[in-house]
């Protein structure tokens, strides 16, 4: 029975389930997004607003403790503490041997989160404990993020969890208090956009390159007001960790939520994880999840297809994720770019200290950061280590590896990846957000150039004056070895 769920096509019971999920028996098929959304509507509030049930609430140290306190002060204790999970990631140091005291400004936030979660019986994967990690790494790793569920967190990169087939989105601080108090949200339904990636991944290309390429094609505002579904043969072929990376950057094209339909890859990944259903319950859940993927005749408000032949390893050159090119291209010239973007391009090049028309490859790099909720999972660390192994970082480069969670760190150490990085002159650190946001004091110094596996290259994101280039873990590792932006395919 244990392997029953692996069977291929849905049977009669699934079609029955599909009809249950779609009781109005609309002749038109439904999208994955609509199926999850519609099945979570508690009541219609009028004017296009609905009250949506939230299945999972994840908290982190930046806003978790504060929001819990505020809800409690308003007289609303957490409505569903058992659907709520927390972990500190944003505000503590990632220095080896760190505690909450290592970065003192973060300490009160971590203490307040500890105190409030304990008071209401909310499970906290605390500092120094098994399970602690970046909140968007922790959810899927623990099996808390399930297909077909709604999941929210006070962080815009919550879309990451969509890689598991979950409808996940980031929320603001007042919305967070609302969810704590009611386990619901007042929401208006977004439109649907399907981004299909067709074909095979070319050498050196990863999910990070796919999503950066897409943002480069569509721009950072294309997804505003949409929910995104990633589809196509290339997406189907991606392992779960890569799907999480893909969905992570959804917010960088303006959409709050991005998802990949669950399939056998999802169930393989999930089966046996701590909080995933077990035994007969598992079989029931999988039968339910098999009815979730978008029906063949479902319609989207917008469709976009990417031919994987055109996707090469990417690197950002400017101060927005849409400022992105293939690594073998020249730095764009604002005078030949679209007129409405000229000013922004010029300002970005000035901030980044780059000359238009020159190849981006070979640009000298001072820092390399491998980590963040985008690219800190075990497959990311393996990809970076495969480039680093037997080599040494360039002398002038400071290179950090910050694993996404305690478990990833342990797994990597068991495989000897820490040795690979340490022998190559990299630092091997404790799990957390670290240099992605620099809210824990870990910064790229002013004027220094960094190649980072994170998701934002905004002005000052990695520290005041820091110059960030986003890329995949292998590309970042290559930059550390060469001491300059490098094409991973040539290593």
């Amino acid at each position, binding site marked *: 029975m244990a392997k029953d769920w692996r069977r291929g096509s849905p049977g009669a019971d699934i079609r029955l389930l599909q009809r249950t999920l779609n009781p109005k028996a609309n002749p038109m098929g439904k999208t994955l997004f609509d199926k999850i959304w519609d099945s979570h509507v*508690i*009541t219609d509030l009028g004017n296009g607003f609905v*009250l949506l049930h939230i*299945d999972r609430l994840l908290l982190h140290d930046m806003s978790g403790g504060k929001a819990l306190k505020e809800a409690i002060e*308003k007289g*609303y204790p957490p409505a569903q503490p058992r659907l709520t999970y927390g972990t500190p990631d944003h505000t503590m140091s990632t220095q080896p041997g760190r505690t909450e005291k290592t970065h003192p400004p973060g300490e009160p936030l971590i203490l307040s989160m500890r105190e409030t979660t304990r008071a209401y019986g909310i499970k906290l994967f605390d500092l120094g404990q098994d399970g602690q990690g970046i909140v968007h790494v922790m959810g899927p790793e623990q099996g808390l993020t399930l297909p077909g569920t709604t999941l929210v967190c006070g962080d815009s990169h919550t879309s990451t969890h969509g890689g598991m087939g979950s409808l996940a989105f980031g929320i603001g601080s007042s919305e967070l208090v609302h969810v704590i108090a*009611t*386990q619901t949200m007042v929401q208006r339904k977004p439109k649907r956009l399907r981004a299909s990636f067709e074909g095979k991944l070319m050498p050196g290309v990863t999910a990070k390159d796919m999503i950066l390429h897409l943002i480069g094609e569509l721009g950072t505002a294309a997804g505003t007001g949409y929910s995104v579904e990633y589809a196509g043969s290339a997406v189907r072929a991606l392992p779960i960790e890569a799907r999480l990376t893909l969905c992570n950057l959804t917010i960088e094209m303006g959409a709050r939520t991005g998802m990949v339909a669950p399939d056998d890859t999802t169930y393989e990944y999930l089966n046996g994880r701590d909080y995933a259903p077990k035994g007969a*319950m598992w079989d029931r859940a999988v039968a*339910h999840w098999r009815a979730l993927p978008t029906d063949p005749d479902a319609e989207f408000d917008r469709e976009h297809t990417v031919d994987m032949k055109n996707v090469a390893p990417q690197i950002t050159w400017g101060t927005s994720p849409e400022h992105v090119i293939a690594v073998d291209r020249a730095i764009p010239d604002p005078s030949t770019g679209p007129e409405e973007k000229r000013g922004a391009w010029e300002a970005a090049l000035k901030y980044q200290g780059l000359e238009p028309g020159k190849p981006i490859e070979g640009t000298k790099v001072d820092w390399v950061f491998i980590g963040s909720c985008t690219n800190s999972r075990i497959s990311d660390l393996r990809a970076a280590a495969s480039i680093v192994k037997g080599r040494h970082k360039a002398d002038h480069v400071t290179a950090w590896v910050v694993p996404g969670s305690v478990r990833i760190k342990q797994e990597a150490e068991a495989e000897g990846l820490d040795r690979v990085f340490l022998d190559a002159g990299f630092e091997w650190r404790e799990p957390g957000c670290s240099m992605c946001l620099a809210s824990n004091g870990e910064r790229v110094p002013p004027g220094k150039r960094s190649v980072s596996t994170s998701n934002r290259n905004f002005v000052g994101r990695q520290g005041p004056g820091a110059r960030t280039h986003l890329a995949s873990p292998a590309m970042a590792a290559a930059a550390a070895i060469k001491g300059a932006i490098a094409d991973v395919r040539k290593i």
Partner: protein
Amino acid sequence: MDKFTKVTGVATPLMRQNVDTDLIIRIERLVDNVTRDGLGPYCFEQIRFKPDGSEDPDCIFNQQPYRDAPIILSRENFGCGSSREGAVWALKGMGVRAVIAPYFGDIFNNNCFQNGLLPVALPIHEIEQLADEMKASPGNARVTIDLENCQVVSPTGRTIPFQIDARRQHAMLNGLDDIAQTMSHKDVITAWQSQDKTARPWVWL
């Protein structure tokens, strides 16, 4: 959240334009860990107190009968500037239940409705007349704000109608902030959840 149905009391004419939220409460007071209920003493501190910390007798909030008055009369754009919700908490802490002005800062206006403080928009000539009537008989003059009937009754008995969004009026009359409004669907939520526990038991840990 406190309900608001009807308030009768002294109205303080603070007849300036652009009373910003910085003037209402300084940001340091919100960082200094003063609790939400403890902000009253710091409300309008920059005009209520002299630099040496003593009360400024020239400030209308320090004069009778305006001390502890539940209503403020003001000119255009009351509550403009920073989005700090602490401005509303501070006013409430000082005993203010309603502010009458020609129009309000947008965010301040929203924040009021999350906290049971009523912003009433009236034409400036009406507000000036209310202020005059207040000053004419400082001991006895009272203003009434009747939310149910959407009208203000002046000290001389004139009734002045005002407008308010029906959803917000309902929320204020019943003491419902956003969360409270959702809570009014509590039975539906609970029913949905118990049905879901049968349909998708694996979600419920």
